[in-house]
């Protein structure tokens, strides 16, 4: 097959450029519209980053507003920096984003691996399948629904308060979602509740790929189940774990914003507002578009640096890399 493809390519390189274009006209017809689409909807917004160096005001047409806007250099970035130094709202949003991401990195990353290992140890096929099916379910509901459920569960009349009260663990019912100090934990728990099973799939797939012969020889050596997990399964799925870890590092600064937006409130603002929510509230809510763009740009650049950095470290330590 490879040889054939090569000969076809050779034949094509002999043809002149317009001739090749004509020969592949259908392929071009099938792809160029999407190329235009991706340029317009994904790359044009990147050019829109230049708005961060303007005082963009939306008056009628977006393009006209863009060309009419005043250029102000790095004014908005200076404002962001000053905000960090004076520990203002941007500082809080950045801290909350990194804080919640960090919680997710630690707890949200380890739990699916443990869960996958446990599922793999279930002997009854039937129970295994049921557990898996149920654990994937929350992944498919929207954050709107999930947030609704979570706020019912955590309300003062809700089941969790009731349970804690009946167990005698609390004296007075706690309005959990109004406790700013608990917000990061609640977000992490919500995310794990929703995505645990789903995030475990990739590790389960990796575990099924482990050579059964390794377990057989471990059996002969008298290894117990925990030892087999520790000395065979974990090392064998390490490449997958590394790849997922690198990807998670890249997402360190993008924890998502839906759950924070839906479950956060003015009471918990100091701990619930993340960068995206801040950008939406200020950038769009108060029409400070340039400032909002600067926040988005900051976020993307940090994210790229993180992913490249993590990748570099992984490559240095001899594990797999993704870029």
């Amino acid at each position, binding site marked *: 097959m490879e040889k054939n493809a090569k000969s076809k390519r050779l034949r094509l390189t002999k043809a002149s450029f317009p001739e090749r274009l004509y020969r*592949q006209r259908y392929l071009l017809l099938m*792809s160029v519209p*999407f190329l235009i689409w991706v340029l317009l909807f994904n790359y044009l917004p990147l050019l829109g980053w230049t708005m961060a160096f303007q005082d963009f005001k939306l008056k009628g047409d977006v393009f006209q507003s863009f060309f009419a806007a005043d250029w102000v250099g790095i004014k908005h970035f200076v404002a962001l920096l000053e905000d960090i130094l004076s520990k203002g709202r941007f500082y809080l949003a950045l801290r909350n984003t990194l804080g919640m991401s960090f919680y997710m990195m630690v707890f949200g990353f380890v739990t699916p691996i443990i869960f996958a290992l446990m599922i793999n140890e279930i002997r009854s096929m039937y*129970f295994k399948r049921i557990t898996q099916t149920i654990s994937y379910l929350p992944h498919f509901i929207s954050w709107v629904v999930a947030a609704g*459920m979570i706020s019912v569960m955590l309300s003062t009349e809700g089941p969790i308060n009731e349970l804690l009260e009946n167990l005698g663990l609390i004296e007075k019912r706690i309005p959990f979602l109004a406790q700013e100090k608990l917000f990061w934990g609640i977000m992490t728990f919500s995310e794990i509740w929703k995505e645990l099973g789903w995030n475990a799939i990739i590790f389960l797939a990796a575990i099924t790929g482990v050579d059964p012969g390794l377990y057989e020889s471990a059996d002969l050596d008298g290894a117990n189940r925990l030892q087999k997990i520790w000395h065979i399964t974990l090392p064998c799925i390490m490449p997958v774990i590394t790849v997922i870890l690198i990807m998670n590092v890249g997402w360190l600064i993008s924890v998502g914003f839906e759950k*924070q*937006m839906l479950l956060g409130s*003015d009471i918990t603002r100091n701990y619930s507002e993340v960068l995206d929510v801040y950008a939406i509230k200020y950038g769009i809510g108060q029409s400070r578009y340039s400032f909002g763009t600067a926040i988005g740009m900051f976020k993307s650049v940090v994210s790229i640096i993180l992913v490249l950095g993590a990748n570099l470290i992984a490559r240095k330590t001899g594990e797999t890399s993704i870029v």
Partner: protein
Amino acid sequence: MRKGLQQRSKGDYIMDAVILVVMLLVIIATLFPFLNVLATAFNKSSDSIKGGIGIFPRVPTLDNFKELGRYPLLFQGALISFLRTLIGTAASLFSTCMLAYVLSRRDFMFRRFFTAVFLFTMYIDSGIIPSFMVIRAFGLNNTFWVYIIPGIISAYNLILVRSFIDQLPYSLQESAFLDGANDLTMFFRIVMPLCPPVIATVGLFYAVGQWNSWFDTYLFAPFNEQITTLQYELMKILQQSQAQSGGANLGQAARIAQANTISPLSIRMAVTVITVTPIIIVYPFVQKYFVTGLTLGAVKS
């Protein structure tokens, strides 16, 4: 080692017990909120306020669902959600498959360049405001098409389909080529008929995404009742109660809902039930496609 060997059966026993307990806890933690919502939705509204409902309604009634007639926007929202799921999934599937086919063709002259252009979008995000501006600039805000066009292809799904096509035997295409088939017929007649597994997976991803989105309505058509969505309406109703208990984040939405009357808990749960039901109904049937699809992608990448 020796100790491990001696105690093996005992250790095994403990381990099985631990796993069983953990799994049961996970199952309960996952299912309880769903069952609680269901029970509350079928419970008499004035009784639900007292709290303490478990997984069965205390005073069973259908009244909450009858009350939903007072929310005409829910019906409009359900209609739009249905339409966007249908049209959006079809458009996305068609586009993704077609592009994936072209990118899988080893002789395609711009293959590397086009692939790179699409893959790069996975790593860089321009942020909400620039995208918002671009979509406004094209006049898509306040139209139905804002649900379909900006997200018509997801790079992730594109890779899934492409890796599936990549592992089909290339000889099929070659023989069709010798028979004089052009690239269009090759795609529609040879490649597509072999793709149902991946089409099922990716189609379901798109469909769930469409049914579940609310943020695009919030951003691009918050006041346009003609194209409101079910998730957005549910969000407004749920946020009203938050607005009462201390200023919701989505104040704008709560305001348009004119939240002087807050829907009772049971009504809110009834709307939630309506919103999740389609997912719960199709879920058991489609679950295996999601998993095969994801594993396919995992193995490839």
